[in-house]
Structure formats: structure tokens, C-alpha cells
């Protein structure tokens, strides 16, 4: 009697993409914030080449993380404010389809901003970020961050201080993931030995899997009254 899992997830993703294409609320606010951030960093950090290589992954992840806070809050607030979350909750779909639908949408919006940042940062910092392995780390880090972010934003969006609360509850939880993502990308950009970045990429992949499973299991409890 339930709607098939993938059909429901796909419907939610398509709906999110369509509404975003119309309003451009998320991408424009996230993109503008990200652009301003890296401009400020590029003016503020007068570094030599080696120092820039070491600092640039930190700049990238700080920008992606804070831009994603904007997107995650807005994405879930859109469902909450009009009561649309209730409309989805009374449909004969598994609760977890809502989580995966929102996760895919949030990931696509955040990774779009991340991908736009790479060529711009390459020009501003004169360090080539458009590399297959850096892209892979960006995808893995963004996926993990939006996974835990989607779960926590579902919780915090029900509170009055949702904009402030999300970063506060999310940063401690996302710390292992951010640490792995920053270390992996720094080691890749500073041409460190293979074993240095492989270890961090493995940790990143493991944290991604753990977060995905935990969020999948917890979402039903989070969404309940």
C-alpha cells in the first residue's frame, strides 16, 4: 500500500529542484555568501605559494560549511512554514523517503556551490583546485555534511531560534567529518605522500557511511511529534 521508496524519493527531489529553479532562493543566497567569503579571504590572506596551498582547503571548507547552513535551514523551513512537512507525513510513504529526498536536494544545492567555488578559488588563490581527487573529497565531505545537516535541520527548524541553533548543534557532530575532509584536501593540494591523503579519505568514507546509517535510523524518531 506504501508508495515505492525510490518513486517517493525521486518525487521529492524533483519537487525541490523545480521550486529552486523557480525561486533560486537557496542557490543565490548560498552562492552570494560563498563568493563574498572567498573574496574576503583572498584579500585578507597575503601568503606565499606554500602557505596558500596549506590554507586554501581550510578556506574552501569554511565557505562550503557556512553556505550549507543557509541552504539547510531554508530548505527545511520551506517545508515547515507552509505545513508541507505535514502534507508529506500524511502521505502513504515511508518517513525515511522524506529524509532521502531532502538529503539529495540539499546535497545537489551544496555541491553546486562547491563546484562553482573551485574555479573561482583557483583564479583568486592561484592554486589549482580543479583536480579529480579534490573533487572526490569535495563530494564525499559535502555528502556527509548534508546528511547530518538534513537530520539536524529537521529538528532545529521546529524551534524558534532555528538559524542560530543549527550551527551550534551541528558543528560538534560534524567535526570528525570536517577534520577528515580538510586533512584529505590539504594533503592532496600540498602534494603529500599518497598514504597521507589515502588514510584521511578512508576515514572520510567511513564517517560518511556511519552518518548515513545513523541519520537513516534516527530520522523517523526526529520527525515524530
Amino acid at each position, binding site marked *: 500500500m506504501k508508495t515505492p521508496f525510490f518513486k*517517493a524519493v525521486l518525487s521529492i527531489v524533483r519537487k525541490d529542484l523545480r521550486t529552486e529553479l523557480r525561486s533560486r532562493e537557496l542557490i543565490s543566497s548560498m552562492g552570494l555568501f560563498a563568493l563574498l567569503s572567498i573574496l574576503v579571504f583572498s584579500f585578507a590572506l597575503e601568503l606565499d605559494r606554500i602557505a596558500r596551498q596549506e590554507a586554501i582547503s581550510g578556506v574552501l571548507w569554511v565557505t562550503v560549511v557556512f553556505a550549507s547552513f543557509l541552504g539547510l535551514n531554508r530548505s527545511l523551513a520551506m517545508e515547515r512554514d507552509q505545513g508541507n512537512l*505535514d502534507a508529506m507525513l500524511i*502521505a*502513504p510513504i515511508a518517513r525515511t523517503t522524506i529524509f532521502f529526498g531532502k538529503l539529495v536536494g540539499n546535497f545537489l544545492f551544496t555541491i553546486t556551490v562547491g563546484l562553482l567555488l573551485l574555479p573561482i578559488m583557483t583564479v583568486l588563490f592561484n592554486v589549482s583546485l580543479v583536480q579529480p581527487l579534490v573533487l572526490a573529497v569535495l563530494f564525499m565531505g559535502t555528502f556527509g555534511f548534508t546528511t547530518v545537516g538534513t537530520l539536524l535541520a529537521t529538528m532545529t527548524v521546529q524551534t524558534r531560534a532555528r538559524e542560530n541553533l543549527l550551527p551550534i548543534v551541528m558543528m560538534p557532530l560534524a567535526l570528525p567529518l570536517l577534520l577528515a575532509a580538510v586533512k584529505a584536501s590539504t594533503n592532496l593540494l600540498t602534494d603529500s605522500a599518497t598514504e597521507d591523503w589515502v588514510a584521511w579519505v578512508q576515514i572520510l568514507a567511513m564517517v560518511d557511511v556511519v552518518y548515513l546509517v545513523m541519520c537513516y535510523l534516527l530520522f523517523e524518531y526526529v520527525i515524530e511529534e
Partner: protein
Amino acid sequence: MTETSTTRALVEIRSLVKAFGVLPVLRQLDLTIEKGEFVALLGPNGSGKSTLIRLLSGLSKPTAGTIHIGGWELPQEAAAVRAQIGLVSHRPLLYENLSARENLIFFSRLYNLPRDAANTRIDDLLERVGLGRRAGDMVRTFSRGMQQRLSIARALLHGPAVLLFDEPYTGLDQDAAAILDDLLTDTHAAGQTIIMVTHQLNQAAKLASRVVILSRGKIGYDAPTNGLDALELASIYTQTTSMASAKQ
């Protein structure tokens, strides 16, 4: 479009208790609703009306007691129950940046309706609620009344056995309320079972076939309307709610 598991009453509520922490909102509530009834659920603020609607729609879980809809039990068979209910709230439950048709298409997919059948049904419903010509317009351009009519189309989309209305007249002007009256009358005449929470005694007396007054989490009055007018209902309402207050 919906199927039921047994031939018992469409909605059966037995010894229902709902508490938030130590605060009881519904206390040992018993209610049976037969197919085709239009039940107006009245009561003062805080009497548990909206809580009951949230319990019936599966958005909330009972503290104790049982709820059966179409023979399926909540919350154990929630997916089966959710396929049998449609909810119209005081909030539109619609996406402002999608058109009326796109909203209905989205929800038809969540309800797993076959594409061709869904398209036909969406066209029919948009005409029925008077939005056929505005089908391609964004919901954000709609008035509150139009959004409420579209909400009804959304709630009827999957042919639910029970329609739940939670204060549907909130924010509607007189014209929009009159249009909603006509829609509710037509929907009920088509055999739809309706449970409507409202503070509008006029509408309750005029439209409903049965009135249930909740007071402090219990049923204080439950009877068919049978020609009851708004003044008589207002008198019953005052007596029922003031008696409950006096008992406290």
C-alpha cells in the same frame, strides 16, 4: 479508490487518551463515525479538537486507547490509514513556487496514483474547485480562498475515505467562505465522510449531519443536527462548555 479491511464503522475511537507530558488533552474519548457522516467537531480553544485531528491523521500518536479508520489501526497500520485520509488544515499545505497543477502532480506521485488516472483526476478536481483556468499559475499568486480550494483538491486527490478539516474557515472572507460551504456541501452529497473542526457555529449547523462538542478533552455533546439552527447550537454549545468548566 480506497479499500477497507473490515466492515466495522469507518472511524472507531476507543478510550483515547492523549497527554503532553503530565498534561492530559484528551481523556478517555470514545467516538464512532459511520460512512457518509459529516461531523462538526466544536469546542473552546484547548479542548483537544486539533489534537484529535492530528491523531486521526497519524501526525501524532495516542498516549493510550485505540483508533481504527476503515478497519486499520493507528499507529500500527499507519501507512494503510494514511492512504484513507485527506487533510485540509488552516495552513494551505501547498508549495507556493509550484503551480496548482504541479502541486497536485507532486502529491499524486506521493500517493502512487497511475500517471494517466492522476492527470484525469487532477483536471476534474481543478474544475470542481473552480481553479481550472488557473491550473498553470503559481500558488503564491492565489488568494487565501483559492489556496484553500486547492487544498481541498489536494486532499481529495487519492479518493480518501475520510476528509479531515482543521479550522478551514480561518482567514477566509465571506465570499471565500461561501464558496467553501458549497464545496463542502457538494463533497458531502457525493457520499464523502467528513470530520471538520471549526469555531463557526453557523457553518456547523448548516452543513454538518452531526455535531460533537469537545470540552476539556471529553465529549460534552454528541447528536445529529436534524434541523438545528445556529442559535440553538450556540445555546447548546454555551451550556456544554460552561458545565464542563463548572465541573472543573
